């Protein structure tokens, strides 16, 4: 009986080894037709194990079948011419198979054509997609740049605002500043007197003498009769002593409101009762090297 299996066998014999799947594909010819053409894989990829699925494979196998069938037919005709032994059924069978296979082949060709068109469209679309992709990437880059620039701008604006706030916070009237500048320069506290020479006892800080004659120094020296006892004979220094340390601001006046006073959270430097006033006293005591005036009752 001339069946497809028979012809596949012949084909395998004639053409050598074929992948097993294509044999199975050949026997399941009906199944093949129903398989979706697109799922038949790449038009160009007839590779290896995927075998009979691709349209190309199917086309090729159809072609081979046709070839085999036509060869059989011709051989049979040739034999029947010599031999007069007519197996009419077989001829018809072969013919029918041939026609059938040809029909399949034609359909496969149409399928292939469609697939080609689709593939072409796919290609066009892919190109389109690529173009769009690159557009999107370009846009993304630009957006990122924009974001960076904006972030920088925002940051700088914030910094500016911060510094504005800071400046506003520290705003002082120019008059006050001028007054203060005048005060500290007039007394040579920040700028040396023009006639200063080495040997001049004046200094940019309160000197020993001045410290002792200030409030701190006087706190433990109630017995000293004024400052004249300690003078080195420099009239200049003497003349400057009385107001040299204490602020020239009339602090006996009521101008100094309560909120000018030093912050009062300071009583616990050691987390223990003794306040800092005691420390001032200690300093002053120890500072005066004149033994007659020191009265150290605490240590």
């Amino acid at each position, binding site marked *: 009986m001339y069946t497809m299996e028979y012809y596949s066998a012949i084909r395998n014999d004639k053409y050598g080894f074929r992948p097993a799947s294509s044999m199975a594909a050949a026997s399941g010819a009906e199944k093949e037709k129903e398989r979706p053409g697109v799922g038949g894989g790449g038009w160009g990829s007839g590779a290896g194990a995927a075998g009979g699925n691709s349209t190309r494979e199917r086309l090729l196998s159809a072609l081979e079948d046709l070839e085999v069938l036509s060869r059989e037919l011709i051989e049979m005709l040739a034999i029947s011419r010599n031999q007069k032994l007519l197996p009419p059924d077989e001829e018809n069978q072969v013919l029918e198979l041939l026609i059938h296979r040809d029909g399949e082949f034609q359909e496969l060709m149409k399928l292939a054509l469609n697939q080609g068109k689709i593939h072409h469209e796919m290609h066009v679309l892919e190109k389109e997609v690529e173009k769009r992709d690159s557009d999107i990437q370009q846009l993304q880059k630009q957006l990122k740049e924009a974001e960076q620039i904006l972030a920088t701008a925002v940051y700088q604006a914030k910094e500016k605002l911060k510094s504005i706030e800071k400046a506003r916070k520290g705003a002082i009237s120019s008059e006050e500043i001028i007054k203060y500048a005048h005060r500290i320069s007039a007394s040579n506290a920040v700028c040396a007197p023009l006639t200063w020479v080495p040997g001049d006892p004046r200094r940019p*800080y309160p000197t*020993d003498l001045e410290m002792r004659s200030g409030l701190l120094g006087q706190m433990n020296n109630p017995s000293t009769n004024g400052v004249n006892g300690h003078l080195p004979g420099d009239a200049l220094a003497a003349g400057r002593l009385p107001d040299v340390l204490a602020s020239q601001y009339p602090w006996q006046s009521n101008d100094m409101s309560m909120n000018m006073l030093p912050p009062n959270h300071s009583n616990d430097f050691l987390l223990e009762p003794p306040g800092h006033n005691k420390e001032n006293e200690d300093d002053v005591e120890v500072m005066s090297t004149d033994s007659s005036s020191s009265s150290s009752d605490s240590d």
Partner: protein
Amino acid sequence: MAAAVAMETDDAGNRLRFQLELEFVQCLANPNYLNFLAQRGYFKDKAFVNYLKYLLYWKEPEYAKYLKYPQCLHMLELLQYEHFRKELVNAQCAKFIDEQQILHWQHYSRKRMRLQQALAEQQQQNHAAGK
């Protein structure tokens, strides 16, 4: 009545404290005094260090305007650092600071002298050129 009296004494106490702290913080501008304190170990006392930290309030403008020797603020800031306090035990350190302070103190007078000299020279040149 008692409350008013109490307020008054409190006020007086605060005023005294203000003046004392004002004097003390300005004394810190004197490097010799700082050396004195360092050598007697005051800087090792934690309470004293805390006191120095407390004194930082003099940096606020409303308090700073009472300072006659504003250099004391810089010294106060430096005193917050342990390393500086340790260094002050050396007399050379205090001497160096003293010298630098005095030199800086003379900065403006030097500048003025230079300007005056330059002006004098220029006048001389003009005079010579005029003749």
